[in-house]
């Protein structure tokens, strides 16, 4: 038997070259971005040659300029507030709603659950218009709350938590009920620890989504002081505030690198979290 036989050596080498080649292209844009941010304007726009691939002498002035000219301090603050607050509140609300759908019996449960599933399938361009109208009535226009409140519950988050909590044995909850625990205690002392991996996964999904959200923030914000990172990048891309390519790339580096850094530090959690949509076969 040849249970461990694979393809012949030349074939293996070709497959390795192709797959590794593809994997390395994932770094190219980001390396290029960092390299360009260290060049002078003249170097960056000169026709590319083997000699001009690397900056002749790294220039770091582009970074403070990017911070100033693109107003990055403010943008950073906004993105951090929006992503952090959204994550904390959305995970809590989705987890509680998921718990209710998983473990509580009440009238209309199936109908409500169907409504929740339906929201998952609807494309945002079918509802953003009246969502915007309602947001206006609620004072949620052109401020940070406008980018937080509509995301405090999501069909995906609720179903995801429901699925995680459903798997917890019913006996645990019955024992708690006999001890006279209220539903919130049951959630906190039994469901929360048992569903912790799912909660962590949902937190990562929520944070990345909020950090990268573009369409809705584009609709609800007008004034520059409420821009988040993706809006600022789009403006950079259109050359609104900054014309210099190296300064644009320095700004882009400052925006993209923190998340990439966190990703490399805890990539297992990221990969597991962001792909948990598809893991259930």
């Amino acid at each position, binding site marked *: 038997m040849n249970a461990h036989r694979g393809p012949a050596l030349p074939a293996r080498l070709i497959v390795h070259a192709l797959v590794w080649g593809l*994997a390395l292209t994932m770094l190219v844009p980001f390396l290029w971005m960092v390299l360009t941010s260290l060049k002078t304007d003249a170097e960056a726009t000169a026709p590319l040659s083997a000699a001009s691939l690397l900056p002749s002498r790294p220039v770091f002035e582009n970074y403070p300029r990017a911070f100033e000219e693109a107003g990055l301090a403010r943008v950073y603050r906004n993105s951090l507030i929006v992503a952090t607050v959204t994550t904390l509140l959305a995970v809590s609300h989705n987890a509680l709603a998921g718990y209710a759908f998983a473990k509580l019996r009440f009238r209309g449960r199936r109908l409500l659950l169907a409504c929740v599933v339906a929201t998952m399938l609807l494309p945002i361009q079918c*509802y*953003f218009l009246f969502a915007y109208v309602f947001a206006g009535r609620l004072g949620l226009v052109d401020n940070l709350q406008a980018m937080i409140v509509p995301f405090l519950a999501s069909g995906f988050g609720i179903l995801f938590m429901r699925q995680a909590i459903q798997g917890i044995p019913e006996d645990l909850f019955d024992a708690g009920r006999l001890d006279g625990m209220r539903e919130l205690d049951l959630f906190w002392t039994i469901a929360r620890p048992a569903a912790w991996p799912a909660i962590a996964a949902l937190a990562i999904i929520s944070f990345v989504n909020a950090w990268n959200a573009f369409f809705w923030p584009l609709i609800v914000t007008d004034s520059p002081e409420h821009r988040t990172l993706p809006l600022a990048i789009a403006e950079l891309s259109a050359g609104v505030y900054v014309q210099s390519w190296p300064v644009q790339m320095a700004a882009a580096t400052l925006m993209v690198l923190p998340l990439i850094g966190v990703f490399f530090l805890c990539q297992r959690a990221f990969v597991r979290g962001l792909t948990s949509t598809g893991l259930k076969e």
Partner: protein
Amino acid sequence: MGFLAFPLAVLLVFTLIPTALGVGLSLFQWTGGGSPRYIGSMNFSALLDDDRVGAALRNSLIYVLATVPLTTIAAFLVASAVHARWFRGRAAVRTLLFLPTIVSIVAIGFVWRWLLNDRAGLVSPLLRALGVAAPPRWLEEGPWPMVCIILVSIWRQIGFCVVIYLSALAALGASVDEAAELDGATGLRRLRHVTFPRVSRTTVFLLATGAIGALQVFDIVYVMTAGEPTRASTVLNYEVYRNFSMGSLGFASAIGVLLLALTAMAGALQFARRRGAAS
């Protein structure tokens, strides 16, 4: 029940009711001020005559048909290679491929736009060095803007699909290898006839969710080309946004209804397949 009140209110106010009203608004003419005027199906007949919407529909369908199957099949092949016992550097490859998934599409479009810049970018000078005399102006000429948007999208999404396939392959365990051994199947034949059928549920999941996501493409178009030149790379969602910005709200809603119908078809694909597998 108290747990549900706020989350359900959010979904109701920001998703469900707006969708219903949006579908209704497709039968009206409205600029945002005053009251909407009922015009029956006129938005929809205008939709059929509108050159921009026609181009957007064509481009959106091309985008779905080009990105989704290619990404899925390429991801299956890559995942099979990475999953093989003889593959070296599995963890590193997985991390690298997954990297663009966490970076915002806006940032990715922005950086690629520069890589594709004719003079100062990376792609065209490289091609010139390799002997291509006159590489096209990627984001300005002929079919290239759509081609670039499609390739960058595949590049960004492949890692996500690879990771999903890898977990499906891991779940299959050794049984596949044994079955293939009995069949005497090797190499690509084995991939096609033994492994591929066993991950079909993953494939259908990736195709359906991929198609639903691809129909909604917006960010990358907004940043890379803004639909230009002369609507060569516009897509449905970009036209929704454009008409919204111009105050043609009824017309924007009608395009939204078209998108909803297409999305429902893509979703039905998955359910139909699931039912078929169940019986």
